[in-house]
């Protein structure tokens, strides 16, 4: 579908009248009536008809140049839906569990001319193979561009629904339950208790660690001195005891320290945005906070969470294990979307700017016109 960003530019098409008028009202070629044309029937002769055709060709070329320039002014854009077929597909997500009403719907569709496909990149035949969760919206957008009608059977998993929901006209989504898959096994290795040493006196940190210990399954021991990797030293006091440096550098413990020289002074209320610098020191790690430990922010509820994220870093959630769902109504299209908006939104990424194409076309036509206008070299050199 051709679309013009500046439709007023099409008014320039009126300039097409100029060459047409010139062609129609050009001064007639001088006519000489001779008794005989036998002396003109040399290689130089050119039939009137040929020349007429040439004139017409030249006119068309000139019209083409002007038309492409006018098009260029109008800034044309080609808007999508290329390759839109009349196909109807019923698509099944690999992790969708089709049962009950959605199963009936699936059977009804496949029985009434819908082709069964897999809702996965490529839209191949249904293989039953496990597939990674996909970006549903982008797949649906692709279907929208491709098919006359598509029905997608897929679970409304949050992990598959990234970004904004596109407005879809030719794609219908039937939310289904998820196929139950065994969750990935955790490592069965016995876990060593985490040892935490606090240098200096800070009740909020004590409280936070206590909270972490209660929430998590890991054992957290409060010790006065640590010497193993994975252990933590919270240095609240101004001066560091002599055992800290070897514990960090040689034994590999973690040290959390606040830099006193920070120009920002104490933390005010902008928790949780700690600026933490990790510096590897020997085998261990030094975590520097560029602000001072302050009782105000340590009293917030987010502080124990932060402490937990330090002590017990979470492994990344596997997509298979992501059990978070969205309410299908959340994913449903809102009524406010107008059709006009739909088509524009849909095709925004498919549109191609044809302005440069028109420019190239004009240039090519101009070249052709010049070539044709000066075409026959009249063979002057052939005359004796």
């Amino acid at each position, binding site marked *: 579908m051709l679309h013009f960003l500046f439709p007023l530019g099409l008014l320039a098409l009126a300039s097409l009248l100029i060459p047409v008028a010139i062609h129609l009202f050009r001064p007639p070629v001088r006519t000489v009536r001779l008794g*005989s044309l036998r002396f003109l029937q*040399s290689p130089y002769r050119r039939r009137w008809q040929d020349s007429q055709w040439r004139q017409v060709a030249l006119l068309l070329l000139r019209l083409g140049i002007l038309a492409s320039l006018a098009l260029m002014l109008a800034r044309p854009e080609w808007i999508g839906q290329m390759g839109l077929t009349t196909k109807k597909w019923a698509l099944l997500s690999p992790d969708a569990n089709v049962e009950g009403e959605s199963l009936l719907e699936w059977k009804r569709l496949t029985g009434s001319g819908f082709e069964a496909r897999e809702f996965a990149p490529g839209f191949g035949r249904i293989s039953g193979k496990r597939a990674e969760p996909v970006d549903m919206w982008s797949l649906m957008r692709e279907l929208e561009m491709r098919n006359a009608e598509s029905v997608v059977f897929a679970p409304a998993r949050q992990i598959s629904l990234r970004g904004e929901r596109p407005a879809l006209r030719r794609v219908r989504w039937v939310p289904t339950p998820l196929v139950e898959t065994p969750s990935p096994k955790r490592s069965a290795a016995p876990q060593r208790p985490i040892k935490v040493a606090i240098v200096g006196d800070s009740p909020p940190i004590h409280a936070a660690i206590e909270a972490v210990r209660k929430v998590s399954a890991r054992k957290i021991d409060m010790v006065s001195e640590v010497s193993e990797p994975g252990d933590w030293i919270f240095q609240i006091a101004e001066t560091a005891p002599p055992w800290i440096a070897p514990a960090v550098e040689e034994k590999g413990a973690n040290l959390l320290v606040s830099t006193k020289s920070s120009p920002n002074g104490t933390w005010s209320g902008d928790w949780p945005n700690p600026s933490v610098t990790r510096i590897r020191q020997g085998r261990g790690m030094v975590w520097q906070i560029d602000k001072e430990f302050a009782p105000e922010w340590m009293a917030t509820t987010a502080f124990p969470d932060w402490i937990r994220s330090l002590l017990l870093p979470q492994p990344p959630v596997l997509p298979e294990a992501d059990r978070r769902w969205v309410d299908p109504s959340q994913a449903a299209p809102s009524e406010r979307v107008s059709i006009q908006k739909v088509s524009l939104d849909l095709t925004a990424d498919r549109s191609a700017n044809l302005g440069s194409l028109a420019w190239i076309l004009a240039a090519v036509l101009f070249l052709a016109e010049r070539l044709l206008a000066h075409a026959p070299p009249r063979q002057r050199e052939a005359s004796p």
Partner: protein
Amino acid sequence: MNSNPMIDPRVIAATRGLEVAARKWVTGLVAGMHSSRRSGFAREFSQYRAYQPGDDTRHIDWKLFARSDRYFLRESDVDTTMNVRIVLDATESMAYKEDRRRKFDDARILAAAFACLAAEQGDPVGLHTVRDGHVESIQPGAHRQPFRRIVYALEQLTPAGKWTASPRRLSAALAQTVRAPGDASSALTIILTDGHEHSEEIRNSLLPLRARRHEVLFVHLTGHDEASFPYTGLVRFEEIETGRIIEADAGAVRTAYLGENERWLDDWRRVWRGDRFDYCRIGMNEPLDRALRSYLRRRARRN
């Protein structure tokens, strides 16, 4: 030379008609020339011969007998009437115009003048016009006032069509003339044409004249622009007879055109110049007198 426009037969023809033009022109041209019929003495004196028994007594010069008391016959040259046949090309190509004058107008004036001259000298004169594929003839001796008849026919004529495709037509028309008074040897054919043909049809028609060793005066009428080709730029050339059109850059084709034209004129000249043939090329901007003088020369040789 007729440089004075008042006596230019072309001007007179355009203003006062062919007949006046031809008469005035011819009278001016042949003033002082002995015209055989008016003199009342048609026969030129040759010799006296003694009477031989058996001679026609009508030819005895009785006045000489009164003086000399002998019978003498007054002998003269054979009466030299000459069949003049004018072949006029009235095909459409003769409508070629230059300075608002048609080539055909020149041809018509010449034909009228030849007819006038012939009539003045008592020669039977006929006119054969080739036009639109046909030959129309006014046979010599068929009319009491051949000149008037011819002039009338000429004035009614407009150039049209092409030369006759079959060469026999003209030969047949001319053959009738030969059977008219006078013998075959004393016929003069005057051809007035521009020579523009499509497939040698004019040449083929005239070839029998050449083969039979007729006396022929070939008047070739050419246009000045046809010969000099003064055109420049893109010109659409139209062939008058066929309407065929060729568009060409005149400047570019000029050299070739002139060469071809020259060769073509040479062809005609070579064919129609010889012992018994006269070739006379007249441009449309040249005085027509030359053709007439050429006729008179040939006519005088016959006397």
